[in-house]
């Protein structure tokens, strides 16, 4: 079972829900939590963990071989991303602009741009309290999240069988990294705040989930701080609201220190139980 936890914008509580839910579910189930927000992985800050292993991750980019190059400029011409340019008597490659399409390399008449691995980030696997935690982090200066997300998902699939519940803490937004993160998920849990901003961003996230044809449901964070707009929207659209995590200053303080909330706030544990029941229902054929 693959469960993606996503939201239309940042700062609505994705990481809060992911880390608390992983810890809560781990009391009865085998769980692996994966932080796919590779640009700003923050889940790890909220989890006490012991490192199991660390792997450097790389992707393929062209590297200039000056000895065979005739400076014909074909590479610069075929690169739609302007990642290869000719500067005088030199070919310069900008790895962070390269999308790894291989066009320059394979269309070079003199084989002067062989593809070689370049580091893009680090994947770490840890044992947390009762569950496994996988995190990938882009190296500073790397801008392309999608290849690292794809490799991280493949790693999780290889190492954990179907009996393990896989939770994905997704990147924010509705663009390519989010699509990559949720396209293989069985269910998507969208987290939002009960405010006009939250509602607007939720409606975008719902559009994304629908476009990908995903089973999805909503969790409302900081319940009580705002209005009924989100609840009304969900009922109008026939979207299931799984849980309402109550707003409190105590929750905000626990978050600011990087601490889990449900052990300190019983109401939050109750809400997580409802999310848990939904996931179990989906695992048993989706009649929840």
């Amino acid at each position, binding site marked *: 079972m693959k469960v993606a936890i996503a939201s239309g914008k940042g700062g609505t509580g994705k990481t809060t829900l992911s880390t608390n839910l992983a810890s809560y579910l781990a009391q009865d189930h085998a769980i692996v939590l994966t932080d796919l927000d590779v640009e700003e992985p923050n889940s790890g*800050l909220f989890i006490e963990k012991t490192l199991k292993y660390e792997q450097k991750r790389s992707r393929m980019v062209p590297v200039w071989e000056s000895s065979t190059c005739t400076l014909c400029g074909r590479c610069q011409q*075929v690169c*739609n991303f302007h990642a290869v340019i000719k500067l005088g008597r030199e070919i310069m490659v900008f790895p962070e602009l390269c999308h790894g*399409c291989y*066009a320059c390399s394979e*269309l070079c008449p003199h084989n002067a741009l062989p593809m070689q691995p370049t580091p893009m980030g680090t994947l770490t696997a840890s044992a947390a309290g009762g569950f496994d935690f996988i995190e990938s982090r882009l190296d500073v200066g790397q801008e392309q999240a999608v290849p690292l997300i794809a490799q991280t998902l493949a790693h999780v699939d290889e190492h954990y069988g179907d009996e393990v519940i896989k939770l994905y803490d997704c990147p*924010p937004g509705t663009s390519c990294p989010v*699509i990559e993160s949720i396209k293989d998920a069985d269910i998507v849990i969208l987290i939002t705040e009960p405010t006009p901003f939250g509602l607007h961003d939720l409606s975008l996230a719902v559009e994304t989930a629908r476009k990908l044809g995903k089973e999805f449901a909503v969790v409302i964070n900081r319940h009580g701080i705002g209005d009924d707009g989100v609840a009304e929207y969900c009922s109008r659209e026939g979207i299931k609201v799984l849980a309402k995590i109550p707003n409190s200053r105590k929750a905000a303080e626990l978050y*600011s220190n990087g601490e889990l909330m449900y052990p300190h706030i019983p109401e939050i544990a109750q809400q997580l139980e409802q999310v848990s029941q939904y996931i179990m229902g989906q695992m048993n054929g989706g009649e929840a």
Partner: protein
Amino acid sequence: MKEIVVISGKGGTGKTSITASLAYLGADSMVIADCDVDAADMHLLMRPEAVSSEGFTSGVLAVIDQSRCIGCGRCAQACRYDAIPYRDGQYTVTPLDCEGCGYCARICPVGAISMVDQLVGEWYLSTTRTGASMVHARLGIGAENSGKLVAKVKNEAKQAAQEQGKQYVLVDGSPGIGCPVVSSLSGADFVVLVTEPTVSGLHDLQRVYQLVKRFQIPAGCIINKADLNGEVAAQIHDFLKNEQIVHIADLPYDEAFTRAMLEGKTIVEVSDNPIGEALSDSWLQIQTILGE
């Protein structure tokens, strides 16, 4: 005309609410540019009414002309993104997977593939309830914000500001540290960094400031929810001091922010609270720094 850009690195710090407050305070002395296109929420507070709108294209997408395709499959082999599956007896492009590299089009032996401009969204020039014009955009699902779109929104805003003889362009900047935020910062006269005293807030502030520093743009910082965590707030204060960033204001943790939002207002419009005063003072400070 001076350009003020508000950025935060991390989402959920209150950047948009604060930008909208500055917009309210500056009223019709400015033109507003919403470059946080992924989570464009400023319109909820400024309530723009579109005067004009235009489609926006960014990047290209492969399209196969089935009448010319001979089914050789070279395109599918060359595609590193598995974007050209063989289905129902033909090769077709999955738009969400296509990166627009154009490799397939270059090697197709019969020229059956063309790269077409991708319509990714729309941008609008609007008037708002404060009298200021606002330029904003909306992207389709799966479409990515880009330096190009940010540059477009900013350019239109600057042009409007020049035509209308306004003093400022106020930019709600893009999140993250990639191309869109580089484009948001490019050409700015002053940067307002919005952060919160959480472990992730500090971390993201430090990352995004590296960019501001590279562009040598003078910067100031507003710390939202400053009393939430004294320890992290102190670390932020140290960081500001070391980097010589103007410490504009500390805003207390206050749910009045959300209450104002529920009424579709900025916090400076709801009856007297400490945040409103602090932001009025912030706006004066920013104007002084810019020498107006």
